[in-house]
């Protein structure tokens, strides 16, 4: 399974709340409509999204995933990072657009 540490080898990604342990993900799902994520995401996937609100974190808790990749233009507040840290959810910020993240992950064989 792909590791977070390998994802971060590309400098276009920055981890916002580092944790001591590395993480793995079973795949990715990209959407800005959280209802589609509720319907289609499986546990331990990573979510690629522009939405950086409490709703995104709640979704992660309901569906059981702990990596959120926030794409270019996502506005991230300190309180959002704080809540994510409390809930043990790793936030990764990137300057890539959604499709560029997916292209990068495919090119590097991570998905």
């Amino acid at each position, binding site marked *: 399974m792909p590791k977070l540490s390998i994802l971060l080898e590309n400098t276009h990604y920055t981890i916002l709340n580092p944790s001591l342990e590395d993480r793995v993900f079973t795949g990715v799902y990209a959407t800005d*409509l959280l*209802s589609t994520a*509720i319907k289609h995401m499986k*546990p331990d996937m990573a979510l690629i999204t522009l*939405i950086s609100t*409490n*709703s995104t974190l*709640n*979704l992660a808790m*309901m569906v059981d995933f702990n990596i959120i990749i926030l794409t270019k233009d996502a506005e991230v507040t300190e309180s959002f990072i704080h809540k994510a840290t409390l809930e043990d959810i790793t936030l990764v910020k990137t300057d890539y657009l959604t499709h560029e993240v997916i292209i990068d992950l495919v090119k590097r064989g991570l998905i």
Partner: protein
Amino acid sequence: MVKEHQIIAGNFDLAGRASTDLKRLLKSMATYPRLYVNRVCSASYEAEINIVIHSVGGYMTYEVSETTIELNFYDDGPGISDIELAMKKGYSTASQIAHLNGFGAGMGLNNIKELSDRLTIHSTPRGTHLKMIFTIGERDA
């Protein structure tokens, strides 16, 4: 075990409290399959968000037993004028703030129906009641 949670209309910061509490409880019990817990809590979260977006406020109750989980969501209106239409994918009356929070695409009720094993909806202008029953099945394995 029966518990009740208030749900406040229009408050996206507090939206998800009830479902998060339910999730923590079910995880701590370590009785149910992970996919079953996720299914119950995802449906709960959708219903909770629906009350936040569309109603003047309400509450949810959950009843957890060994073989089934029952969720009830009640709000104080204004009700769903056409339930059949509201169940259609893509039909939405949600506000801009709901969209900014990633919801309001017209999938909520449909998701709830697919995630639950039994769903009943009663709605009048004075309020709506959603009742969901979940039993562990093949899709939870």
